[in-house]
């Protein structure tokens, strides 16, 4: 909508709501598992994102609303920290007893902007431009690794 509106100058209306970045669970079924926060914690959380899947985005364990392992807000779903702990223990890595420090919300860029063209290292003349690597993403500010697949 925004691209067409900017390019044409014609009044352009949205016909749908962009809800979230959906992981495909099965055809027609989507779940949000990554909120593209720019400050990934998945290494310590067994590949389950608490920033996204805990309704409160907590980092250090369940809130007081957990009951019988279920989430207080999404009551038909296991608490994110029950899921994380289960997988960490299964992997011989748990439980997660380290205190996770406050999150760096400045990395959640709003509005987001990444300029891969100008961050790209100079290529020898005549060489085709290579694919951007993690090191080349992020422009002149902090390097932000957006090269991997989202969580």
């Amino acid at each position: 909508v925004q691209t067409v509106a900017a390019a044409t100058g014609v009044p352009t209306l949205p016909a749908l709501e962009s809800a979230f970045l959906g992981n495909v669970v099965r055809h027609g079924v989507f779940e949000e598992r990554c909120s593209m926060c720019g400050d990934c914690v998945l290494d310590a959380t067994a590949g389950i994102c608490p920033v996204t899947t805990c309704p409160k985005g907590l980092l250090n364990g369940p809130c007081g609303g957990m009951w019988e392992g279920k989430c207080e807000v999404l009551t038909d779903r296991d608490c994110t920290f029950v899921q994380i702990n289960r997988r960490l223990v299964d992997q011989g890595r748990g439980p997660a007893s380290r205190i996770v420090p406050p999150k760096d919300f400045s990395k959640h860029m709003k509005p987001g902007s990444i300029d891969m063209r100008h961050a790209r290292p100079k290529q020898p003349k005549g060489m085709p431009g290579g694919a951007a690597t993690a090191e080349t993403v992020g422009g002149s500010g902090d390097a932000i690794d957006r090269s991997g697949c989202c969580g």
Partner: protein
Amino acid sequence: MSRLSEALDSGRFVVTGEVGPPLGTDTGSMERAAAVMAPVCTAINVTDNQGATLHMSSIAASARLLAMGYEPVFQQTCRDRNRLALQSDLLSASAMGLENLLVVTGDDPRSGDHPHAKGVFDLDSTQLLGIAAGMNEGHDMLGRDLDGHTGFYLGAAMFPEAEPWDIQLMKAEKKIAAGARFFQTQAVFDLDKLARATEAMHDLGAKVIAGILLLRSPRVVKFINEKLAGLEVPAYIGERIAAAERPSLEAVELAVEQVTACRDICDGVHIMPLGLDASVPEIVERAGVGRG
């Protein structure tokens, strides 16, 4: 120094009460509730937009209780304020003379009266405890020196009955590592689970004050089971209240039994009156735990 910390450190069994600030500017009914409970309570908690519903701030209402000569436990949730506002409020609270701080995550806004509000949760309760502990030592969360440090006795919430226990325990251990010195628990009905939790917390040097709910009617039981997250009144208790000729009297009997039993298990009780404020002194005295 807070009376609550002195009492707990000296091994005295403490009683804490709870009041909710008003939806409005008139603190009269809150003051009356506090006045009824204060003679038998070491401190009185002042809730912070409890149940994610709009009320006067805990900091202002706590200051009101302090001015009346009572000792408040200032509660702070992580739901409504970011790290700037939370730290700012801690400085304000300490400057106003508030000495007890209970840090909780906070109910989700979707369960309250402003369900369209944005839940902040910039920090979680463990992180905020750590920051408050740092402020007690004289620095903010960035490590910068404060011009005058806070002096909070730091408390946190705990949930002895919510399973699975291993991750509850993990969270409680983190809270102690972050600086919590005492816990006030969610309402407890299962004394074996209370004993399990207390033993674990005592091993780590923290005190445990057990939550006691006054269930004045079957309607209150229904409200708790349907509306309050992380809490369920066991069926046998609900049936006992429902079968009673006068449920509010039965609620007092039940509370006397619970408080009496807690004397041998933990370090105190936190009585949440849910409208039965006037019965708190009777419960405390009959259970033999009044301020001596």
